[in-house]
């Protein structure tokens, strides 16, 4: 456990989390959410939860981003907030 790395990752997670919620374009939001999931997965690897990190990498950064993009393709990218 290296606390400097830990802290940097936590800050990045916070930044991407806020960005995913506040960006005014749903497609960007989906991609940032994927990045968020991937950073979260790095954080968990760093904490030693390898199985959980593996799952999050495949599910959060992979499949759910694909689902979200597919849904946005059929709906709209527009968002007011």
């Amino acid at each position, binding site marked *: 456990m290296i606390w400097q790395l830990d802290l940097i990752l936590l800050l990045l997670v916070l930044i991407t989390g806020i960005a995913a919620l506040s960006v005014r374009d749903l497609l960007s939001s989906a991609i940032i959410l994927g990045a968020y999931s991937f950073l979260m997965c790095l954080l968990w690897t760093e904490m030693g939860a*390898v*199985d959980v*990190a*593996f*799952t999050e990498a*495949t*599910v959060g950064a*992979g*499949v759910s981003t*694909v*689902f979200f993009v*597919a*849904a946005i*393709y*059929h709906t709209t990218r527009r968002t007011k907030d």
Partner: protein
Amino acid sequence: MIRRNDDLIIETLARLLIPFIQAFALYVLFLGHYSPGGGFQGGVLVAASLILLIIAFDLEKTTKRFSEKFNVICNGGGVFIYAGIGLLCILLGGNLLDYSVLSKILPVGPEEARALGILGVEIGVEITVAACLVSIFIDLAANGEN
């Protein structure tokens, strides 16, 4: 969403990558006892490879190979393997999901029987997860038009 687009680079890359992804998925499944991984992660990887197939080629062609009926059978079949192993344990005189009684029908001791039970269960999880995630993706991508 997904139409035929004839992009040579993407198709070749997909052809190259998909076998490796699926082999890695099997590796993750069978080495789940010794390294990170297991049924769920393997299943998601299989689903990812199939989604790549759908994106690189087209949806209609893939769903022809991969009928809805087959998908639902896989979907339920995986869960059925899990539940079946659990119920088999009851038939052999144990509690639900007590894999150690599998040693009565397998030529191994109760501890190895547990390991084998875990493996069987993980295979069921892998099939279900792969089929389900692909089915959700097809539904989302086709938007009800398939």
